[in-house]
């Protein structure tokens, strides 16, 4: 873990070498989700509510997913950009070092410009929390924190999965974006607005539901239940990481026996 922060600091130093580009990129990153959010706002202007969810409730859901996503893009960027690492042959370099490959890949790239996106999502988060009554209790805020954290792990898992495919096909698989970008777009709204199949997919296959819709039901008092439930539920999302890491290991093994 200490090493991970060392990696981070060297990348931060690198990024600071290009300050103008950093600020412009961050600025851009601030406005991309802002547009999406603008659309959300206008929709509610017109329709008032979404299947029983008010504007601020949906905004909370939106901001949780976007916080997770921007954090994962910042900290797990190494896996997202993995195809170039394999393509350039730099992955060999990682294998001759006495540390786990996954940690080194994670440390190979950070995308600090995502701070723009993070900031934007943070603002929406605070805005919706302060406009929703009864959220200011410790367990609820803690549950929200857990949701963001475990959401980060789910996105990371998808990045790892996509990276693993690079061992078989060198080109980056655009298919993975269906799940990262697609997952983000779907999960930013309460899942009950979709078809049953979609809801199930995002609950049991890629468990975005565990870090957004399901615990939010309890947090927003839409369903009665013990507060323990929304506190534990997000960690169900983290389980997703386990098979991802297993598949990753198979990928590394394959790479080392084929060298491609």
């Amino acid at each position, binding site marked *: 873990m200490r090493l991970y922060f060392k990696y981070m600091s060297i990348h931060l*130093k690198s990024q600071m070498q290009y300050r103008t580009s950093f600020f412009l990129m961050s600025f851009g990153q601030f406005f991309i989700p802002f547009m999406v959010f603008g659309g959300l706002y206008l929709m509610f202007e017109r329709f008032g509510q979404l299947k029983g969810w008010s504007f601020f409730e949906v905004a909370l859901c939106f901001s949780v997913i976007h916080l997770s996503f921007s954090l994962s893009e910042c900290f797990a960027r190494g896996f997202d950009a993995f195809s170039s690492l394999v393509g350039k042959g730099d992955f*060999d370099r990682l*294998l001759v070092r006495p540390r786990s490959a996954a940690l080194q890949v994670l440390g190979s790239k950070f995308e600090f410009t995502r701070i723009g996106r993070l900031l934007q999502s943070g603002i929406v988060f605070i805005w919706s929390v302060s406009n929703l009554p009864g959220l200011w209790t410790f367990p609820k805020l803690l549950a929200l924190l857990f949701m963001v954290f475990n959401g980060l792990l789910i996105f990371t898992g998808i990045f790892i999965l996509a990276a693993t495919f690079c061992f078989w096909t060198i080109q980056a698989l655009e298919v993975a974006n269906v799940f990262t970008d697609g997952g983000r777009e779907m999960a930013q709204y309460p899942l009950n607005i979709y078809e049953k199949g979609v809801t199930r997919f995002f609950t049991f296959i890629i468990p975005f539901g565990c870090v957004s819709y399901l615990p939010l039901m309890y947090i927003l008092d839409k369903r009665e239940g013990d507060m323990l439930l929304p506190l534990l539920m997000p960690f169900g999302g983290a389980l997703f990481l386990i098979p991802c890491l297993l598949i990753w290991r198979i990928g590394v093994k394959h790479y080392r026996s084929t*060298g491609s």
Partner: protein
Amino acid sequence: MSRNNGMIRLEGIGKSFKVATRTAGLKEAAKALFARKHTVVEALKDISFSIGEGEVVGYIGPNGAGKSTTIKVMSGILVPDDGSCSIMGYTPWKDRAEYVKHIGVVFGQRSQLWWDVPVLDSFELLRDIYKIPEAQYKANISMLTEMLALETIVQMPVRQLSLGQRMRCEIAASLLHSPKLLFLDEPTIGLDAVSKLAVRSFIKKLNKEQGVTVILTTHDMSDIEALASRILMIGKGSLLYDGSLEELKGRFGSGKTVTVDYRGESGPIEIPGAAMLEWSAERAVYSFDPEQLTLAEIVSRLSAFVEVVDIEVVAKDIDEMIVRLYEEHKI
């Protein structure tokens, strides 16, 4: 080898790759999308050798011969199909994490330094990756800075360094954790003469003073001549030659090449006992064997027809011997 204590032992290493074959044409390409044909390429066939501690070995062969595959197997990146390999008591691909602490690898074409930060920052990160104790790190840094003349450049970001400076830093970076075995994959590629010499003399010194075993792949035969006491040559996946440079020289005779600059008009002049390599206005090149024909004879023969202005004699160059060796094995 007399001093061979078997630090590295490879036995019957074999490795083949499946390569997708595709014939030209759109129709074939479309077919290949669904049913790919694979051919099996044998990258390494029954490679066995052993290298003793403290040796400097030049590993040579034409492109695609299997050099880098061997290096990858020996550095634990690649798992071979058959055969065994023991280096310092480790099996590289099985004990990877433990084993790589004891080796250093320089890939001449790929950097291990972080591009935008000062070299020293990269060194510090490597210190943390390898968990190098502070005292050892400091000692190594000061030794390497001195031996490679790095004082002024370690404060600079890598992107501002020249290729020669960068290569010196790369080599330093791979030695921070005091490895006993150093793999150098084309360490002098693209370097100017001065940097080449600096890198070579450093490797020599490192081997002599620290006893580091060095395995070096290169296409530059003068690297081999300057550094390696032993040559391993690989071609089409098989080991073709294992021996000293002197032995190789002995095998291909003590031939020399003479280049003569002349003045005067003349057609090509044949000299019995020498082979004409080139004849142009003002310049003639012959190769000859000094035991059969003396230089004076050549010059006097030429002087009968033209005015000899300048003569240059060089021993047959090692590149030529290697080409002959390649030809001998038809690779």
